[in-house]
């Protein structure tokens, strides 16, 4: 180890926390840096002729392949659609690459593809190109999937961390922690009395509806790996302003909180697959909530906090239920490997 930097890739490098960030900044950007990549957003925004498009890609290695509320196929469609959606675009088309391990049952592959087709149709996107590769037994874990996606930016929509202002409201479209705790409890064979279910869902319908009907939406990001804590920390780092959230206003299902307590996880750090955090102007918050509440994927939407002045170091702070305060750190990254 030189200066504490690991010589080999650790599982935590893929966790969406500090180590992932370090890997990208120290090893990827120096070789590939360019204007479109530099903001490290959920999608790249490109001007092609007169069209303004968003373009993104993501790979899916979730274990187990099938989980309550979804499967790797549904996840592969939703994850990429959501990255396009929170960048302020309407997703149009996806590509699909399958890396299949020798020995995977054809029936399993069929189930995954059926799920991919169904989710894409529901979300109104087409899978327009693809690739299949097979690898020797032991070189993959059943199946890995990569999808890339393209979307058209909604006209007049300008989202960015530089748009934040003190007093802006922070809201989320529903309960947190459902996906991560479903996966980990299913993986470890722990059954909780009530049912945990992944929130895996395509968010573009909801985000487009909000962006088309509400003025004053400053920024959106889906809260996947690293959970709400990671997204909020990215926001304060990028905006140089602080965020204060209220524990009492965080939407968390009791079964999720219970599972997190048993397993020793902080729900704030746990992955979601159907949630986005938005920062909106104070006067826009009420209309956002109203529209969300009328949408299937936003019924539990809540304002959870505000953008606040920053001290020297921009922090995410939590006002606890008992009136105390504490900071919310960027998660390290190893909490839950192979969650998506």
């Amino acid at each position, binding site marked *: 180890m030189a200066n504490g930097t690991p010589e080999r890739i*650790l599982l935590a490098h893929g966790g969406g926390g500090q*180590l992932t960030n370090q890997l990208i900044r120290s090893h990827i950007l120096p070789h590939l840096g360019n204007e479109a990549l530099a903001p490290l957003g959920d999608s790249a925004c490109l001007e092609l002729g007169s069209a303004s498009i968003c373009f993104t890609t993501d790979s899916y290695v979730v274990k187990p392949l099938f989980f309550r509320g979804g499967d790797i196929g549904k996840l592969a469609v939703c994850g990429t659609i959501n990255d396009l959606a929170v960048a302020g675009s309407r997703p149009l088309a996806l590509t699909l690459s399958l890396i299949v391990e020798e020995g995977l049952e054809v029936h399993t592959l069929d189930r995954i593809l059926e799920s991919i087709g169904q989710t894409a149709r529901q979300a109104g996107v087409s899978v327009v190109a693809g690739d299949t590769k097979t690898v020797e037994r032991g070189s993959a874990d059943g199946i890995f999937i990569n999808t890339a996606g393209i979307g058209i930016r909604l006209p007049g929509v300008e989202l960015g961390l530089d748009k934040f202002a003190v007093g802006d409201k922070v809201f989320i479209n529903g309960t947190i922690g459902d996906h991560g705790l479903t996966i980990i409890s299913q993986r470890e064979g722990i059954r909780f009395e009530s049912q945990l279910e992944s929130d895996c869902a395509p968010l573009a319908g909801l985000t487009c509806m909000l962006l088309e009907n509400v003025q004053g939406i400053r920024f959106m990001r889906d809260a996947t790996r690293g959970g709400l804590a990671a997204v909020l920390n990215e926001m304060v780092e990028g905006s140089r302003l602080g965020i204060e959230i209220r524990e009492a206003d965080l939407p968390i299902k009791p079964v999720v909180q219970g599972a997190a307590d048993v397993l020793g996880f902080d729900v704030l750090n746990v992955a979601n697959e159907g949630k986005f955090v938005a920062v909106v102007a104070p006067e826009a918050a009420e209309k956002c909530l109203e529209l969300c509440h009328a949408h299937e994927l936003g019924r539990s939407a809540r304002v959870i906090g505000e953008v606040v002045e920053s001290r020297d170091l921009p922090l995410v702070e939590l006002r*606890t*239920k*008992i009136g*105390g*305060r*504490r900071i919310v750190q960027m998660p390290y990254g*190893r909490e839950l490997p192979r969650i998506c």
Partner: protein
Amino acid sequence: MLDRIVNAQHQIDDACKQLDRPVTIMEVCGTHTVAIFRSGIRSILPASVKLLSGPGCPVCVTDQGYIDAVLELTQRDDCLIATYGDMIRVPGRHGSLETLASKADVRVVLSSEDALQLAKDNPGKTVVFIAVGFETTAPATAVAVKEAAGQDVENFCILSGHKLVIPAMRALLSGMNDRIDAFLCPGHVSVIIGFGAFGEIVDEFRRPCVVGGFEPVQIIEALAEICRQLASGQVQLKSIYSAVVTEKGNTAAQTIVAEVFEPVDGYWRGLGKIPASTLALRERYRRFDAFERFGLADQPGQDDSGCRCGEVLCGLIDPPQCVLFARQCTPQHPIGPCMVSSEGTCAAWFKYGRRD
């Protein structure tokens, strides 16, 4: 709930006015440490109430010598190391289980039972279970050892680092830290050993011992009870976690631990060698002892990193008083175990503490 919190706050305020001196309360349970930070309890207490986090995190109290013994095993290709997740990032001299993971087969398990199953599934390897933890995890390890013995799973063994909490409390009060006015006693440990076990601390050292639960309101009420006792001069043993903790504890768990293990003198980080504080396998189960099987030495380790985890564990300093804290030592690059474990004091300060 808020009524109970406000009420407890008033009791604490009143007691502090009567006492008119600083009050120092130590919790000896990593779950309490995390719960206190997570709920922001420190931020709502009067300035005169000082909370110290004692030797309550099982990974943190594990001596460097034990860590080095674990890491020595990673150099063997005939071993499969089964460990709780928190242990894998504790640094030794040449790396941690995480960074050495590609040289040895290291698996994270959630229980001793999982480790035993690994042994059954991998007959070609010797599975070494890194058995750390207090009275809470020792019974499960004992069950696994008994099962291994009953089913002749000879490729299973344990590296016992199990610790007992009361000898550590005695060591602290016997000269290591005379600032401690009272203990917030651990809820989970008390479920096993029973709250009556802390009676010796109350009787011998005249310090209030109050067993509390883990909800913020239960913690504040336990602190209020401690402050009340200190103000009134009535030192007592009390459990306010009565829904879960009994006076005698879980006797079945105590029996199996006593059958499989015996208390021996053991090394603790920061506290040194404490008499009858560590659990070692009894003679009849000795063949499952990884120290013996691999000729590993159970001796105090050398730590020249400048890490002050030992003093943190004894409540002698707060983490920010260590020059490494939040500079060289972060959750990303931990130098000491208290920064590694999710229940470690340094990790809690780093993760939840306000940076004013």
